[in-house]
């Protein structure tokens, strides 16, 4: 037999990991370290490496700034920063972009000052924009190797078992962080709730975590989630969401056992309320719901309208509580949610999804990343993944924002290709993708204001005037990767 190695003592040999890219070396004698600085030494972070973070704390995250500050203090430079998304709070690391500590970014969302910095062409390398499923795929496939993941851990024990539902900075699901934990070469858990071993409820297991650091605070609960997301009373948004719910009702998919995904965008949330009424009236229950989960989704499960929830991230306190308490509320990883490199993510089982957008064009292409002027200000999130996977993808947006038409001849940046978008809903008209004759037939009896997407675009231009062309922009400052790993569009300097 080949490759036989004889026993040389219980700790003499370091076995290679069975699959994946993560390698295991000697298990550390003690995982708990005194400080982030010690952890940076322990993982042997060097110039040019890739560090990663999750965005489950959204706008209440303290971890990224703490870590990058500590890295900068050690004089380490030229890092690639990979984040599942960047909220506005991360503007705090801007000085480290300016000084060259971080020179490349890989994320699924970018806004605020960092967005401006990148748009202005000041980052050394073009930013890489990926969808949630695309990031999971890139990590799993080895396309995005992560050297060290610094994971904010709402509750963590001394061996690195982690959950997100307990502790002062509870954020609920850790679906995005699961990818980094599973595949990063080194994983550092940073917690403000270090508990005795063993943790009872475990989302990320000790087998994936190298070191644990306790700090005073990892997040601001006020920024992590809102108390409970309220359904909008904005009448225009309600018109849009009522139409969206009506699309589902008449789509042919609205049957017992159907499945839905609802985002956290305003119109998507209030559509849930209309859907709830229709489900009650028609005695239809859904077999499962997928998403970013909100209290409204949780209500629907508690009322018996949705059997089960698959949860990749939580937006408010009721959803965090439900994930903790309700066995029908399941945590899932970004890969399970949306990765095209798996044997099948759950987005492929979703019947209907309602998605917000920045702008769409007459080819049904969707932009959720840049403004019409090309400036970075958004996040693809799971948009391209779920549009591709679901049987009915409904994109909701106002026909105009201020004087800007939102249904245009061409979107500035294609994030989700039109061939995966089925219906565009605005307050002044609903357009069905001509590829979906079945939907056109089904919706003809719905009473919805159906029109061709070109007519919707002309209506918008008639009101605003035809926009003057935006200058094409300069050098490429960002690339938009589609969920399969191909580049679907680029972002240019503005």
């Amino acid at each position: 037999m080949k490759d036989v190695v004889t026993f040389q003592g219980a700790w003499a040999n370091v076995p290679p990991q069975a699959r994946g890219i993560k390698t295991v070396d000697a298990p550390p004698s003690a995982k708990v370290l005194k400080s982030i600085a010690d952890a940076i030494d322990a993982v042997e972070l060097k110039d040019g490496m890739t560090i990663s973070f999750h965005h489950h704390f959204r706008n209440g995250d303290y971890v990224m700034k703490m870590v990058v500050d500590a890295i900068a203090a050690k004089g380490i430079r030229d890092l690639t920063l990979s984040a599942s998304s960047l909220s506005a709070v991360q503007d705090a690391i801007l000085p480290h972009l300016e000084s060259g500590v971080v020179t490349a970014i890989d994320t699924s969302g970018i806004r605020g000052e960092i967005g401006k910095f990148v748009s202005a062409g000041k980052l050394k390398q073009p930013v890489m924009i990926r969808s949630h499923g695309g990031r999971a795929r890139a990590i799993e496939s080895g396309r995005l190797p992560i050297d060290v993941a610094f994971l904010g851990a709402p509750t963590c024990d001394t061996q690195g078992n982690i959950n997100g539902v307990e502790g002062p900075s509870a954020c609920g699901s850790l679906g995005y962080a699961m990818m980094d934990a599973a595949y990063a070469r080194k994983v550092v858990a940073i917690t403000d709730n270090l508990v005795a071993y063993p943790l009872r409820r475990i989302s990320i297991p000790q087998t994936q975590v190298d070191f644990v650091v306790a700090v005073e605070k990892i997040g601001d609960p006020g920024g992590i989630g809102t108390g409970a997301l309220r359904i909008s009373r904005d009448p225009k948004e309600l018109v849009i969401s009522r139409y969206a719910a009506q699309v589902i009702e008449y789509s042919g998919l609205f049957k017992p056992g159907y499945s839905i995904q609802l985002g956290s965008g305003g119109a998507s949330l209030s559509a849930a309320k209309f859907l709830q009424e229709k489900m009650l009236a028609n005695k239809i229950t859904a077999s499962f719901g997928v998403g970013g989960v909100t209290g409204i989704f949780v209500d629907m499960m508690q009322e018996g309208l949705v059997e089960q929830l698959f949860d990749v991230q939580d937006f408010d306190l009721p959803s965090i509580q439900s994930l903790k308490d309700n066995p029908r509320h399941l945590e899932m990883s970004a890969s399970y949610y949306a990765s095209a490199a798996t044997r099948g993510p759950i987005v492929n089982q979703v019947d209907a999804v309602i998605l917000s957008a920045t702008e769409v064009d007459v080819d049904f292409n969707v932009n959720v990343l840049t403004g019409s002027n090309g400036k970075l200000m958004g996040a693809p999130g799971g948009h391209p993944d779920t549009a591709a996977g679901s049987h009915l993808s409904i994109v909701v947006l106002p026909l105009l924002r201020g004087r800007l038409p939102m249904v245009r001849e061409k979107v500035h940046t294609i994030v989700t290709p039109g061939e995966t978008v089925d219906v565009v809903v605005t307050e002044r008209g609903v357009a069905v993708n001509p590829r979906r004759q079945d939907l056109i037939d089904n919706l003809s009896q719905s009473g919805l204001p159906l029109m061709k997407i070109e007519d919707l675009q002309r209506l918008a231009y008639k009101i605003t005037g035809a926009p003057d062309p935006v200058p094409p922009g300069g050098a490429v400052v960002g690339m938009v990767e589609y969920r399969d790993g191909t580049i679907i569009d680029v972002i240019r300097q503005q």
Partner: protein
Amino acid sequence: MNLRRTMLFVPGNDPGKLFNAGIYGADSIVFDLEDAVAVGEKDAARDLVRNALLYNEYPCEVGVRINHISTPFGHDDIREIMRARPAFLRVPKSEDPADIVAVDELMTHWEREYGHEVGSVKMVLTIETALGILNSFHLAKASRRVVAIGLGAEDLAADLETNRTPSGREILFARSQLLLSARAAKVQAIDNVYADVKNEDGFIADTLLGKELGFNGKSVIHPNQVDIVHRIYTPTLAEVEKARRILAAYREALAKKSGVIALDGKMIDGPIVARAERTLRYAQAVGLVKDGESV
């Protein structure tokens, strides 16, 4: 006759609200230059409303509530707004039939001036004083332009020296009187605004009462109220079906020349037939029944 289940009031100096007024499905829209506009902004609101009427397309009729002609703004309102030829002017504090005649004459003057067909712009009167209620029949008859009269409940309650209550008992008599006058004058009766937009249950009860009294529709001040009123004022499919059967039985009896008509063991007489006809006409107007389907 135009369907006016809802008359949606929109503040006259709010660009966003004026622009979006048409998306809520209201049967009728009223741009308000009166109570919704501060005294210092009357001129600005007038310009904005005129341009909104000229530049925007709305899927339903749009009227404008002007300031009373006894105020410094009323005449300017009529002159400027008539240029844009709204569907109607809604005239506040209608009390004296002579005022209605005066407004009518001004409208005629400006219609001639701007080359609009004389009489094409209608009037809807808001009655909101005790004297106005007592004069309501004569007000409705004061101009051939008057197509509807409505009640201004807040001002009326003040004039009656009482307060508004959630149940609206204090204005019940006035509401009934207004309905009587409207029917006698053969114009539409528009029920009053329910100001507490957050109290949905109270709003539903108030709308139901108005419908039971016989009103043609209701003034509303929030877009989210439109659907609720339409649900209440629109006949249910069961009601439409019953009306159909009544009319079928009636026709059959006529054909057979039989004197007594009965359906499901109940007598059908003239008023029941008339009501069934009204239900079907209504259903037709809101698209529940296709045009051309026999009524």
